């Protein structure tokens, strides 16, 4: 049974562990600095489907397929999937996971969805509500452009602070187990809004959310930056990461040397023309379920914080002139 510690943090007791993980990406992501880490990629941006939305669904289906084969279990062994994406009504998840015939709970936390899903899943497993559970999230550059911005062929200029939505999906399968990397603590974030209105500067909008959640976790657990190998934020990009350093420097904490941002890891930001870096639900999810998990298993990392961040805007709220509320959820992943 998990117990609450401090104001926002839950400590698990029964080691909800990553028994399977999988990742699928598009070609641009495969061409990036860590492209070889992913299980599968496709030259075809539509993944053999007729639309970008269905391509995103395909990404989720394939990511879960890889996770299942690593876990060496069948779909009906899974009690419940937590899944999410950036599309209206979560169609990336519903259409992608329909054929597995597993109970599904669609969740939304924008690009923080993987953290939210892992948090919910691990606590339910820890408390014995679920035996095996999966978490899947995805994003697709083209479907996100359609959802939030302009048609793909429309000629417009991107600002230096804008980010590139990653075409990727990641899936994790959790179960109480020993010997595998496990989630030892979860901190759910609060919605933060410091008045950033520029939808082309989401890193700036999300940095305060990352700061707030990491700070809450440190306060609740009485730990500090030196206790962890690395902190992985989701997709703050270059601008957001620098702002996160500024926010921590006000507390006299330097996290620079213990911080990696999945949005900055995904692409070569100089040569791949992604401006401030990658973004999207699939960005942190695919990196967690490839690069990070591979290194947890080989012992490179033993104790990390995974903190994906989400910008909770919609095209409607942006058009109505609202600022961008953001959220970050934290999971502490350990390997003994």
């Amino acid at each position, binding site marked *: 049974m998990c117990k609450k510690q401090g104001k926002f943090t839950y400590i698990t007791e029964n080691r909800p562990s990553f028994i399977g993980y999988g990742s699928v990406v598009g070609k641009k992501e495969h061409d990036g600095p860590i492209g070889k880490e992913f299980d599968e990629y496709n030259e075809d941006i539509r993944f053999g489907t*007729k*639309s970008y939305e269905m391509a995103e669904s395909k990404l989720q289906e394939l990511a879960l397929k890889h996770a299942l084969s690593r876990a060496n279990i069948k779909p009906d062994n899974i009690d419940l999937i937590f899944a999410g994406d950036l599309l209206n009504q979560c169609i990336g998840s519903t259409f992608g996971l329909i054929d597995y015939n597993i109970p599904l709970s669609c969740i939304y936390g924008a690009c923080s969805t993987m953290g939210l899903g892992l948090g919910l899943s691990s606590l339910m497993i820890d408390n014995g509500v679920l035996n095996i559970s999966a978490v899947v999230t995805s994003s697709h550059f083209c479907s996100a452009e*359609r959802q939030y911005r*302009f*048609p*793909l*062929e*429309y*000629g*417009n*200029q*991107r*600002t*230096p*602070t804008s980010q590139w939505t990653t075409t990727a999906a990641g899936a994790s399968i959790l179960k109480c187990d020993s010997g595998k990397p496990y989630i030892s603590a979860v901190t759910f974030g609060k919605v*933060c809004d*410091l*008045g*950033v209105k*520029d939808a082309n*500067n989401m890193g*700036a909008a999300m940095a*305060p959310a990352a*700061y*707030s959640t990491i700070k809450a976790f440190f306060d609740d657990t009485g730990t500090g930056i030196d206790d962890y190998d690395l902190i992985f934020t989701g997709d703050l990009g270059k*601008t957001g990461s*620098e*702002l996160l350093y*500024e*926010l921590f420097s*006000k507390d006299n904490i330097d996290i620079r040397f213990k911080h990696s941002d999945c949005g900055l890891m995904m692409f070569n930001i100089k040569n791949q023309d992604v401006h401030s870096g990658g973004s999207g639900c699939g960005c942190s999810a695919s990196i967690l379920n490839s690069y990070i998990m591979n290194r947890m298993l080989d012992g490179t990392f033993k104790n990390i914080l995974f903190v994906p961040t989400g910008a909770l805007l919609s095209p409607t709220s942006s058009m109505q002139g609202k600022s961008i509320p953001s959220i970050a959820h934290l999971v502490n992943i350990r390997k003994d």
Partner: protein
Amino acid sequence: MIKENEYSVLVKKHSKPSPKPKDFIMSFVIGGLICTFGEFLFNFYASFDIKGDILKAAVPSTLIVIAAFLTGFGLYEKLAKHAGAGTLVPITGFANAICSSAIEYKNEGFIMGVGASIFKIAGPVILYGTAASIIYGIIYYLIKVLGG
């Protein structure tokens, strides 16, 4: 937590601004080249003894068709990335706005997809362009009537 106004100072400090001088020069050069090409077309058609209204319609029509093709092949967006307003302001930008929407919404069908969304970007230009021309027309009419 930091105050909103304090944070906005930090955001400004770390958010790299758009390279304005470069953007201005590129838009001037590429936009200028498109217009020069239009002039070339004008003289080219005129050399075939095409005159008056037909000549005035032939030049933009040709530019629109070329922009539509470039949009379809995904080349216009590559040019626009560097040209900015240089590809947005000429009539080719209008063609790009309509064609890119048409391609984008094809999957949703020809009625509620292409039909309903083709003017999604160009719509404001059409609406306010028409409205402005009506106001201009009324002013012109009043000046003519009152001024004799």
